[in-house]
């Protein structure tokens, strides 16, 4: 079951907000309600399911309602209608005490302008969430220090927040949110106030942290590059409604409508598509076969090299046609001519980083998983083909082109 579920969550601002929810349901547009009822629709019947330990990005331009939406997830803003289920329990039906418990233990928040308390030291900021729970002083100090260490600010606890740079301040904000060990992290434009280089570092660091912690992160941003970089899934918002939900690839390659299409048309695909997108099925041979069999196989398929694997499909290396024919003449085995230092990448490497590898390598690029099992092969043409906007590299690259110059 999803950790967080939104069902037709709306927020309307204005004197008769409650009565206008019904009108939205009857098909009135946002504009008509604004004009005839003077009620502003901030968030319009948003339904989402957010899964455990994913980074779910809510993306939209300013005024799209994304900040309002995220504030409804911990009821900093009260929704006008709809249901918000945390672990299946309706947040809307909770009393103050229950809501406080959720805020203290389940959902933490990181703010756009850091929102650090200027009258408290860094450590006191980080322990705030534990302090309001009246935890034992030593325990909360320890937890806060650990949390600071996690974000790389060990030893900065006694400083005042205004002595820190923007990037460091937001690390404190992150540490403060993590100190409670929440399951869900709300990040409201958390990196938007940072300059681009720092922002990238923070994104990388967040991804690293996420590897370790596996939190459910709901990340708000107006920056498409950021969304594509860190999001497992992205919800694109416009005028208070969710226009499309999908993985970064889906958003890019199958835009739901003209708005999404226009939104993503300038995106640098090379930073989004990964090795797994452009790889194709490799031609392989077992290591215990002879050079003659290998040559025959290559001739049959019209290719000039072969990947050598063991019985568990673990990659041992690659052989070329020339080496194989030379080996056949002098009677060497495949293992003697095996090129073991050919390039290998993991399937989640973005193709932007593949250009240099493919252009320098003499043999095709092998895509392997954690256990070194061969998943696929990438030839140079496939990388370019993907950038040219082709959805599936398999159709573009002829099957027999398992070769490099």
């Amino acid at each position, binding site marked *: 079951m999803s950790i967080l579920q939104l069902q037709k969550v709306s927020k309307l601002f204005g004197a008769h907000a409650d009565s206008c929810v019904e009108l939205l349901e009857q098909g009135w547009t946002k504009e008509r309600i604004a004009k005839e009822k003077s009620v502003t629709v901030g968030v319009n019947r948003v339904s989402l399911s957010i899964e455990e330990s994913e980074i779910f990005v809510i993306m939209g331009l300013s005024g799209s309602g994304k900040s309002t939406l995220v504030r409804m997830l911990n009821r900093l803003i009260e929704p006008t209608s709809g249901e918000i289920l945390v672990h299946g329990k309706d947040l809307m039906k909770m009393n103050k005490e229950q809501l406080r*418990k959720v*805020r203290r233990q389940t959902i933490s*928040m990181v*703010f756009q302008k850091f*929102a650090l308390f200027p009258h408290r030291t860094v450590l006191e900021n980080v322990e705030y*969430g534990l302090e309001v729970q009246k935890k034992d002083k030593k325990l909360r100090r320890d937890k806060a220090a650990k949390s600071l260490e996690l974000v790389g600010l060990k030893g900065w606890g006694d400083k*005042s927040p205004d002595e820190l740079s923007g990037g460091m301040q937001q690390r404190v904000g992150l540490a*403060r949110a993590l100190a409670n060990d929440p399951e869900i992290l709300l990040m409201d434009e958390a990196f938007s106030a940072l300059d681009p280089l720092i922002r990238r570092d923070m994104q990388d660091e967040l991804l690293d942290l996420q590897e370790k912690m596996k939190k459910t992160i709901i990340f708000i941003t107006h920056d498409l590059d950021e969304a594509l970089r860190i999001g497992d899934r992205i919800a694109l918002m416009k005028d208070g409604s969710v226009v499309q939900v999908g993985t970064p690839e889906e958003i890019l390659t199958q835009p739901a409508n003209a708005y999404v299409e226009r939104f993503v048309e300038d995106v640098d695909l090379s930073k989004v598509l990964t090795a797994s997108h452009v790889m194709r099925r490799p031609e392989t041979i077992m290591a215990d076969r002879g050079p003659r069999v290998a040559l025959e196989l290559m001739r049959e398929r019209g290719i000039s090299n072969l990947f050598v694997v063991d019985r568990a499909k673990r990659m041992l290396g690659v052989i070329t046609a020339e080496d194989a024919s030379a080996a056949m003449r002098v009677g060497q085995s495949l293992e003697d001519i095996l090129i073991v230092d050919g390039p290998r990448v993991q399937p989640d490497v973005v193709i932007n980083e593949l250009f240099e590898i493919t252009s320098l390598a003499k043999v095709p690029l092998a895509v392997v998983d954690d256990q070194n099992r061969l998943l696929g092969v990438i030839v140079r043409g496939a990388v370019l083909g993907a950038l040219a906007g082709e959805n599936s590299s398999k159709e573009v690259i002829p099957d027999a082109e398992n070769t490099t110059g």
Partner: protein
Amino acid sequence: MQKIPLDEWVQTLVNWMEDHLTVLFNIISAVIEGIVKGFTWLFMLPHPFLFIIILGILAFLVGRLSLTLFSVIGFLLIYNLGYWSQTMDTLSLVITSALISVVLGIPLGIWCAYSKGASRIITPLLDFMQTMPAFVYLLPAVTFFSLGVVPGVIASVIFAIPPTIRLTLLGIQQVSGELTEAADAFGSTSGQKLFKVQLPLALPTLMAGVNQTIMLSLSMVVIASMIGAQGIGAEVYRAVTQLQIGKGFEAGLVVVILAIVLDRFTQRLFKSDKKRGR
């Protein structure tokens, strides 16, 4: 057209209060008089020179050398001119009314910050208190509390409490929305939010209000002396009514010295605390 009998209504109200609330007024009167007398006793306890030395040390602790010098020389001058006991009376009156203003004003300011309704009622009331000529409420004060220092304190509080209330409200309102959101988001109770986030951040503004309150209550001492409050105000009043220009100047100067010392002291007290957040 017939005149609205507003004057009669007020008179009736005052008469009613006088008849029915005597016990309450007596209690208030006893408490205030007790506080003022306590302070006077405390201030008169040490020899003036010892008092001046203590004042000098305090001034050095909260401020700089210039404040120390000014306080010591100023109070030596007061002693030399022969207004010591009157000055101590006035100091007690001012500190009592400032204390009452703060004790009532800060909670009222917080209440206004939390409740729009309270703010809507109290704000015009504050305008009323600040602009209504003091003599007008001096009379009922005398009716309720008889002559002496108590109606003086009451009048000072009425006149001096608005800045504390207003600036407490302002200070809390000025705490950035994101910070109060952060306090809420981490599950603070309203009390925790108030005492751990809002009040500490509102403190500089709030203290500016307290400073103004002290200055305003000092400016009431002459008026308070007209209804029998002892102190330096009475000296000014007597000198003016008897056309003794020189004596009037002396007593006036003492008020000024007292005002400057009190002002710098209260300003220094919170300016040394530099941590603030907007």
